[in-house]
Each structure stands twice: as C-alpha cells, then as structure tokens.
C-alpha cells in the first residue's frame, strides 16, 4: 500500500506540526505553510505520515491511498 500527502490549502492554518513530525517529506515556506514532497510516501515513513495527518489541528493534511 502506498499513498500521497495532500493539503487542503483553505483549511490549513500554518500550525506547522506536520513539518515537525515529518521533516523528511514536509518543509515550511517563508510564511509557515507546508511544502509537500510530491512523491509517494515510502513504506518506512508511512507510520510517521499517518501520525502527521492525525495530529493536524485543522485536519487539512490527508494521505490519499492508492
């Protein structure tokens, strides 16, 4: 099972927690909004990705499975 990270830019309020939890795939721009690695989430980071999704205070971060 693989997946991609996606952020809803309307609900994202730049808390930045995702980048703290998953710095391997998420960095922040100069305004504090997340920049996502467009590649599929590698298997060894899947648990961290799920954690980042679950801990987003505005539920803006999602992991799309395919």
């Amino acid at each position: 099972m693989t997946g991609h990270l996606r952020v809803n830019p309307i609900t994202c309020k730049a808390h930045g927690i995702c980048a703290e939890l998953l710095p391997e795939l998420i960095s922040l721009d100069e305004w504090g909004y997340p920049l996502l690695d467009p590649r599929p989430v590698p298997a060894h980071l899947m648990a961290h990705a799920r954690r980042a999704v679950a801990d987003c205070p505005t539920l803006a971060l999602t992991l799309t499975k395919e």
Partner: protein
Amino acid sequence: MTPGLPAIPGPAGLAPAGLPRLLLGGPDPARPMPLAEHLDRHGGFLLRGFGGDHGPTMLIDAVERAGLTGHGGAGFPTALKMRAVAGRRRPVVVVNAAEGEPASRKDALLMRIRPHLVLDGAVLAADAVGAREVIVALHTGPSSAQAAVNERLAARLDPVSITVVHMPKEYVASEESALVRFLSGAAALPTFTPPRPYERGVNGRSTLVQNAETLAHLALIARHGDQWFRSVGTADAPGSLLVTVAGAVQRPGVYELASGVPLSTAFDAAGGLTEPIQAVLVGGYFGAWLPAETALQVRLTHADLVAAGAALGAGVLLALPAWACGLAESQRVASWLASQSAGQCGPCTLGLPAIAEDLALLSRSGNTSNVRNRLERRLSLVEGRGACHHPDGTARFVASALQTFSADLARHRRGNPCPPARYPVLPLPDDPVAP
C-alpha cells in the same frame, strides 16, 4: 426521456458562410437583437431535432466532432464536460457570463446584443444532458438578459426554466467552484476540489458550467452541424472566437476572428495600431506578455499560444505602446490581483502581496539581484498552492513581465527609470474612465 418537448419555431436559417457568425446581424451592433429577428436570422431549431431518444447524445456527438472547446479560459473540450453531466440525477446548467477578467468585454457584449444565441445554447445543452433548469450568472449591472428571458417566456419557447442571477464583482467570483458555491447560497469563494461541479455542483446537484460564448457556438452547431462549424478555423483549432482588443489600436472592442489566424489580424480588425508598440498582453491578467515581434506572428489557438509561453485565456489582446513602462503597468495589475485574493489560502493571501511588493521594488529601483532572486523564488512558491488558480495565473503574469521587460529592468538598474506614464494602459475595474 421526456417525450413531446416543443420545437422552437422559425424558418430554417441560412448557415452563414465565413464570418461573422456569433456577431452576425444588423447594422446596429449595439442593439440587443429581439427574439423574432434572432429566429428570422439564425433560424429556429428542433430540440431532439435529430430524432427520438438519441437526440441528446447526437447533439453531444456533433459538438465533439465539431471540436468545440470552452471559451472561458481553460479551453476544455465541451463535449467531455457535457458527457460528465449527462444522465446524472437532476442536473443543472449554468451559463457563466460573469466575466471576471477586467480587460475582457466579449461575454458582456454577447449577453447584451445576442442574448438569444447564448440562451439557445443553454437550452440545447440542458436538453442534451437532461437538465430542466438553467441559471444565467452575470455581473451586477444593466443587461438585456432578463428582458430576453421574459421574451422567451412570453413566447413559451423553452421546456426548461431560466433564472438570471447577478454575481458579486470580485475577480474570483467567476471561477467555476466559486460560482457554484454562490449559486448554492454561500459566499462566492473558490472551494477545494474535488468534488468538481459535474460531481457535486449547485445545491449538490451535478452541474454543467459553460461560458456564454461557448454556448453561443453550440447553438449554431445544433443548427448548422459540425461540418459547417469546421468550415472556419484550422483542423486542430476549428471555428471562430471572440477577442477583446485594447490598448494602442484605432478601434478597441470585441471582434470575431477565425481560430488560428495570426494575432496581427486582430489588430487589423480593430483598425490597426495607432503607434509603435513594444509588447502584447495575451489572454488577460492570467495570461502573459509577449514581445511585439513574437506576438504579432503567433497564431490564435490555445496550443500555439501555450507554445509561445502565453495562453489564449478569455481572448484579451492588449497592445502596449512603446512609451509605456511595462514594469510599472504590470506592478499596478499585480497589486490589484493580490488585492483580489479571496483570502482563503495562505500562500495566495501572503504570497501575492509579497510578489507585488517585489515587483514594485524592481520597477522603481531596477534589477537588484537579491530582490529579483526572492521574487523568482516566490513565484515558484505560490504556484499550484491555492484551491483555485488565482495564484498560478498571477505568477504566470508576473513571470512573463520579468522576461518580456528584462531590458527595462536593466535600464532601471542603471538609474534610468521610465518617464512617468501619460495614463495607465492596463484597465482595472476601479479606474476612472480612460481618456
């Protein structure tokens, strides 16, 4: 299928050979064409005219063979959009005539002088996809749309209901998802997609959103067929298109051209250039600047313009006089575009004003490399990071200004700013009336 839908009366109109098509009409192009004259000139048409239950599919097939694409900006194939809605439960057709582009006048003109052609197209599209409801979305202001709808009601012309709705004047309000959201009773703000309007649109119903000009073309394809449609234009870009020509031309206005002609044809149609020009803004404020020599030769199709680094957009062609400062002009528009952000997405809300400020710094004091680098970085930073394409379009516009006016940047840096402009060339909605 609903049997016994009425036919629209009128003699079989003659298919116009050559141009104009949409703007075919009497000597007074500023007058709304009344229903009787419209039916007399273009002919009536039969809903389900192709016969039986297959009628609707056959219209969509004809639209596909004609190669009709959307004239609102994105150029998406119309038949694909129709198929996505056809057969879904209680779909709705929305006519997008809420032209957000400040320099564009074509949809407003079409709604004012040829409202019945657009409404014919909307009714035909509604019938083809199984919709019983048409909503016409216009900008607030005087229009002949409601009068035209009343004329049709009195003539008991249409088997569908037609409602006219006025939109707020904000730029993003005419964006498809914002339009659908407004028509569902909420604020006219873009939404995060999917779902797209064909999946879940007005009040949750599957919705076909089509630009006004696109529907006018569809109304003529239904009458005269796809072969006729293709008799103008090129094989890859068939048909005609409306363009809004502005700037340094003799007669600014809306003109109908064959798709695929060189861009200079549009300026010829507008009586020619009034003075030497340095660049052309193609596609409006989500489009791009092209240097004059490139612009005059490029062919007016989506593919050719994209290959040249621009976009056809809603068909705005604006000739920038040699005396104007392209950087100052662009900076003024960039600031306005920043102010038009719906304020929903961070990278757009914060990024566009930062981009506009960087461009202001550059246009005043020239090409300082740290500001230039920061601006380049910010342009790539906002792209694709909004719910709608507002940041993408703004970034494309600013990036093309940096490229096209690079000589001006260098000159400003050497301490030679442009002389003060006589008047701003690029129009904005809040401007006083141009001289």
